[in-house]
């Protein structure tokens, strides 16, 4: 299962691969993505995994960040806010704009 693959990447300290695997996993990726977001501790790892992220994955990550913020959990929100600042620094506001203006919003993100 992809969640164990994500665990394996995180265990070996490979944040970039863990993030990409989580974002591209089929089915419900949110729990896997949130696990990566809360597990990666070092700022340098966050920046490194963001710098190599492809455009589609950036947009997907932004959507997961907002879904995570909507959960209301303090620890998850803290991680999401930290990643949010990094994502905007690295990739600009486009992902946020696309998240806000997308017409096909799933119910959980309302």
């Amino acid at each position: 299962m992809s969640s164990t693959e994500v665990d394996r990447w995180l265990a070996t300290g490979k944040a970039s691969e863990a993030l990409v695997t989580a974002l591209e996993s089929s089915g419900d990726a949110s729990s896997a993505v949130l696990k990566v977001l809360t597990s990666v501790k070092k700022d340098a790892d966050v920046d490194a995994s963001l710098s190599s992220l492809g455009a589609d994955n950036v947009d997907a990550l932004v959507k997961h960040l907002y879904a995570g913020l909507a959960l209301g959990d303090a620890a998850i929100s803290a991680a999401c806010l930290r990643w949010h600042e990094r994502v905007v620094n690295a990739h600009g506001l486009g992902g946020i704009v696309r998240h806000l203006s997308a017409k096909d919003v799933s119910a959980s993100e309302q």
Partner: protein
Amino acid sequence: MAAQPHQLAPVVSCFAVSADLSYLALCPNTSSVTIYRVTQDAANGYSFTQIASLEEHDQLVAGIDWCPVTNKLLTCAHDRNAYVWTRGTTEETWDPVLTILRMQRAALCCQWSPKGNKFAVGTAAKTACVCYYEGENNWWVSKLIKKGLHRSSVVDVRWHPNNMLLATASTDGCARVFFAQIPDADGAASAPCPFSTPLLEVRSDSGAWVHSLDWSPDGSSLAFVAHDATVCVVEGMGAPGFWDDGTDAASRATRVGVKNVRLRGLPMACVWFADAECVVVAGHEGAPMIVSPQGGGSWAAGALLGGGGGARTSKRASQFAEASALFQGGGMLGGHNNGGGADSDAVYVKGKPPSGPHSACVTSIRALPRGKGCAFATAGVDGKLVFWPDQTLAGKMSRMAL
């Protein structure tokens, strides 16, 4: 020569230039239209002298277009009216002619057809209409694009160079093309399909509002900008018989190439398809940028022009300073399409005004006549009209005929 900003009004809602750039008409966010005589001298660039103020409308003038063929001025406003203005004996007198739009809601945009015998108006009544002149009564009458074909307001209209097709941009997230030949106006004996037949519908990348669109000079491509910070170029419509082969819109949609460019920053609001290899867009970033084809069929956006958009510091400002600057600076503008990558020191700083000529959203862009030294002009919510010199596009256009 740098981009020259001119502050003609507190806000410019829309503007148009005459064919030889001797006159400029704009709406300063009121119900009137101001006409300026434009003079150009080598030392000081452009200067503007106000010569007339057209007061016929009751509400905000949302669209102005100056016909290059007939020199008539077209204005449309939120008061559900449009007027065609003909120049009188002097440059200060402009005589309005009524147009019967039969619209229930505000007019939002208008454009003369390339031959000047028709014009199109997009409205908040979820439809657009095409008007032509009726000589016996000295007025312009409208034919409506059938109701139900748009699901929301039509915010921009663009004629295809062949004078027969009309493209519309709508807040329902789609750009569409309709057949807009009118037998009475175009004098054609027969038409391949009835007026207002839908010929093509392309949805924006995330279904976000389509703000504006423009045809390429040869009519084989259509570029539109949407509120999800994308620029979309629809290609492959140039083959002869593409439009009148009798197939329906859905099948035609499968035969075009749709190329989406996702921007890094804020959405664009206006677009000019300068030539086959150069689409100029401008919008909420407060500066124009060029979108051009890369090898292999995709398109990509360049940097913001004019040194424009947002200030960048290489040191991280303190969070308190950032927060207070956000309130003092009056909102963040621009700069987000640059930075990252090579410019990796760049930090997203809120609240600093952009360093380019514009300081707010650019809402309209107009091509300027060749040979005057400036390629295009932009205007926006900051009231500045900026003329961009030819060098801005140098090297981006496949041919620059000066």
